[in-house]
């Protein structure tokens, strides 16, 4: 769909972004040492750090991806929310305090701490870069998706805008500004989503069948876009979708429920009838056609697992394993994400690390509960763009008012800024602190270490922009699942075994990180999802039985670590 920019939207958005950048430049004058750049001197208050955890973690995948998935497919998007939050239990109870005690600036610091091994540092730095880049893709895709309707700019412009803004944030003040940007973003995201949920419950549910004629979008071989056979324009475009066609019998004769309570909202929706839209893609000599057709479904059906994860209802073992694999990766992945783990270095001690994790869990938990209302509210708002699930939450806000749309979009954009800055921080630390200083042994002064980190941040920003443009048409929630799989497969076995198995050796850690990373990455590249959505090939050609690798590659990491450790002589710990 084409989206029209409004002056209010542009003004609010610009004020937000300039405010964040101004804060970043101001903070950047306060500290230029490596300790300030990479770990904010370890002096961030635990509450600020906890909300910054939420700001770091609640990425475009959480806000745009989950809401979009719920709006388009129903309950299954909420399974992502459950998995994402569950991962924090691993972080809190298993990883938080030891990682704080073991490391200085990066994940490699912690994993190499017992052995002082350059091999471990190299393997973990590479894994940090791979995970960060995979996590960066959905954030940049989300940025492009946001800017299109907000500013009327093309997707690529949004990606470049985020890339430039976030690179400036990281380059100016490193972890100090990154922390405060994430704190502001985390606070605003939870507060404004709370406001949206209150508006959703206040509005209740209304019958609005709308125009249910199928719609066809065609991209011709010469690149023109047609809607129902005529050129797409401001006056002739795809219609917004997502409506409710019947309320429960107890509302007979009424077209609206009026305000609903939090649980009542679900129960009324379950007894309602909802119109969702399915898309079918075909191609011929006239171009590629995507047909959007209405599908009338019961609320009870949409609020059951299986709307998006088709395998849950197909009965195929491979499909069920695919789902189990994703849920395992989400559970294990959070505590293995380098950009989350480095936040433990910004507080002063283990107690502060623990308290900030609990604060983060509270903020993130509240947010994920709200995603269910946001997604279902969008599903029945009549404002969905059938071509783009990532826009469900902002368009839901637009169904209330343009100003709210501008605010929510600006917050979502800040969401992307917060997460991307954390990822680029993790990546720049891996390059400057781990690879250049530790692995290559280049003697760097404090000032040079910061400068090297800044150069790495700029390079990562450019890579992120390229990938964000390349992966434009992916659901950001789906993409982030890949990052969790790789992080969990590469890092978690080494982290857990280093803490809990005395026989762990440096060679075991190197082997586990390398095999976990290569195996999960290889599996993803050979999966049916990648064959279909990246290579444009048939799913049947994929050699691996299901798309999510975690179920195989996480245990593989543990097995490799145990076997290699047993085969190599233990070295005395430092």
């Amino acid at each position, binding site marked *: 769909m084409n989206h029209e920019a409004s002056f209010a939207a542009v003004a609010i958005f610009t004020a937000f972004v300039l405010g964040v950048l101004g804060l970043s430049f101001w903070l950047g004058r306060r500290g230029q040492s490596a300790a300030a750049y990479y770990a904010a001197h370890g002096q961030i208050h635990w509450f600020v750090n906890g909300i910054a955890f939420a700001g770091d973690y609640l990425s475009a995948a959480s806000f745009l991806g989950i809401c979009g998935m719920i709006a388009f497919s129903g*309950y299954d998007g*909420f*399974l992502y*929310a*459950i998995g994402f*939050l*569950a991962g*924090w*239990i*691993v972080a*809190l*109870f*298993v990883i*938080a*305090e*030891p990682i704080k*005690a073991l490391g200085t600036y990066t994940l490699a610091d912690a994993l190499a701490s017992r052995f002082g091994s350059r091999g471990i540092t190299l393997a973990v730095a590479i894994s940090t870069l791979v995970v960060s880049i995979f996590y960066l893709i959905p954030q940049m895709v989300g940025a492009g998706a946001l800017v299109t309707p907000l500013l009327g700019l093309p997707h690529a412009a949004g990606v470049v805008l985020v890339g430039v803004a976030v690179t400036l944030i990281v380059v100016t003040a490193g972890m100090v500004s990154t922390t405060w940007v994430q704190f502001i973003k985390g606070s605003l995201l939870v507060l404004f989503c709370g406001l949206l949920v209150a508006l959703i419950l206040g509005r209740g549910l209304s019958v609005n069948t709308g125009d249910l004629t199928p719609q066809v979008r065609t991209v011709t071989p010469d690149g023109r876009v047609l809607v129902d056979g005529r050129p797409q324009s401001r006056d002739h475009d795809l219609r917004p979708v997502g409506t409710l066609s019947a309320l429960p019998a107890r509302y007979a004769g009424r077209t609206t429920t009026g305000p609903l309570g939090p*649980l*009542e909202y*679900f*129960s009324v929706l*379950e*007894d309602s009838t909802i119109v969702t839209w399915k898309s079918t893609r075909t191609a011929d000599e006239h171009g590629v056609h995507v047909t959007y057709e209405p599908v009338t479904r019961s609320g*009870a059906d949409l*609020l*059951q*697992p*299986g709307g998006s994860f088709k395998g*849950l*209802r197909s009965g195929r073992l491979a499909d*069920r394993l695919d*789902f*189990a694999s994703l*849920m395992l990766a989400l*559970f294990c992945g959070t505590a293995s994400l380098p950009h989350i783990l480095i936040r433990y270095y910004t507080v002063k001690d*283990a*107690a502060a690390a*623990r*308290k900030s*994790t*609990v604060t983060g*869990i*509270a903020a993130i*938990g509240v947010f*994920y*509960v709200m995603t*269910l209302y946001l997604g279902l509210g969008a599903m029945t708002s009549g404002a969905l763009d059938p071509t783009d699930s990532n826009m469900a939450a902002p368009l839901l806000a637009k169904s209330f008012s343009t100003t709210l749309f501008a605010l929510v979009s600006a917050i979502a954009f800040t969401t992307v800024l917060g997460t991307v800055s954390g990822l680029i921080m993790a990546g720049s630390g891996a390059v400057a602190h781990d690879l250049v200083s530790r692995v290559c042994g280049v003697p760097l002064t404090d000032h040079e270490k910061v400068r090297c980190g800044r150069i790495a941040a700029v390079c990562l920003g450019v890579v992120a922009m390229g990938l964000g443009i390349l992966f434009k048409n992916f659901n950001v929630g789906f993409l982030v699942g890949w990052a969790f799989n790789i992080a969990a497969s590469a890092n978690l076995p080494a982290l857990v075994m*280093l*803490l*809990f*198995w*005395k026989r*762990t050796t440096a060679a075991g850690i190197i082997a586990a990180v390398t095999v976990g990373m290569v195996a999960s990455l290889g599996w993803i590249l050979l999966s049916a999802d990648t064959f279909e959505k990246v290579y444009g090939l048939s799913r049947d050609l994929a050699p691996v039985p299901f798309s999510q690798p975690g179920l195989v590659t996480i245990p593989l990491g543990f097995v490799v670590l145990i076997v290699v450790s047993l085969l190599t002589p233990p070295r005395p*710990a430092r």
Partner: protein
Amino acid sequence: MTKPTAERDGSPAATVRASRTGLALFWIYVLLYGGFMGLVLVRPDLLALRPFGGVNLAILAGLGLIVAAFGLALVSMLGRDTR
């Protein structure tokens, strides 16, 4: 694999205590999470039941898992602070 190596290596005592209590709470949550995912995979029909407020078990269990995560985190923190 019952005690963290940090304990045997003489790392800070706080880390040791955190690991002991934390691991117990961790396993409780693993059971809750695993049980829910097991239901989704094996008996999804049970998730259609509406045990409370006209809301199905899928939603109630999902919300319950989120609340449980916070509850266990709070137990862990308060337990440490009163020790």
